[in-house]
């Protein structure tokens, strides 16, 4: 979906990735760190894709260092990767991104309703949450935002 949108709007849209590793499995937090560490070498998207493609993430439960094995396949400097994995600012970034979505949970909170559902993947378009994950719903919001910017 994201790829389709980027293809349709190559100049008008960018996609920002933020991790939201759920507390129930620590390997998710570690995998998020790996993706950020890979990002420091300019290969965030490659690592992200590598883990999601072919359902690789399913193996994380039994092998939390799977991303390390995938790293050489995408041409990462392993020594640097390990160094970044031990950098506390990488942990801090995962935590910060996690807290960002968490803090949105109380938005439009009323007596009757709770706020944003904390389920991932979760998408916002210029801060607006499209109704559902259909191309039509996204395009509607994107076109409105592009019209606003012009």
């Amino acid at each position, binding site marked *: 979906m994201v790829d389709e949108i980027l293809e349709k709007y190559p100049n008008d849209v960018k996609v920002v990735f933020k991790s939201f590793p*759920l507390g129930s499995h620590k390997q998710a937090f570690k995998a998020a760190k790996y993706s950020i560490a890979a990002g420091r070498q300019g290969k965030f*998207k490659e690592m992200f894709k590598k883990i999601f493609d072919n359902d690789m993430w399913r193996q994380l439960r039994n092998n939390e260092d799977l991303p390390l094995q995938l790293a050489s396949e995408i041409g990462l400097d392993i020594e640097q990767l390990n160094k970044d994995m031990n950098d506390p600012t990488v942990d801090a970034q995962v935590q910060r991104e996690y807290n960002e979505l968490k803090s949105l949970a109380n*938005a439009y909170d009323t007596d009757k309703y709770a706020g944003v559902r904390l389920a991932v993947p979760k998408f916002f378009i210029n801060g607006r949450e499209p109704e559902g994950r259909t191309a039509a719903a996204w395009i509607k919001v994107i076109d409105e935002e592009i019209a606003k910017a012009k």
Partner: protein
Amino acid sequence: MRLNIRYVTVLLFSTMLLTTSCENMSSGSSESGPDLTPLVAKQELFEKKLNQIVKKIDNLQVSVNKIKAAPPTKNDKPQQNKRKPADPNYVHNIPQGDSFFIGNPDAAVTITEFFDFQ
């Protein structure tokens, strides 16, 4: 509770039927008519049972009222479970920060994806 009410209704009807038939029988019969003693005894038994059931229902009603009037305890879940569907007109403040992105850095539209490797 519902079962009890049904039971009482059935009993009431049967008692009424019994009473009516007894009256018919007694009015239509002469002194040498059939002996009604067992029927009367049965009716008395019915009435006794009926009174017991009514008493039980009254007690149940008192209990129900007590439960209704009781303040919610800690274990009661708040009724705030309904989730509002996504509101595309609400604009959340989500700074890009140092998060990684793909696409034109100067793009007018930013899609933010929160993800989890699961």
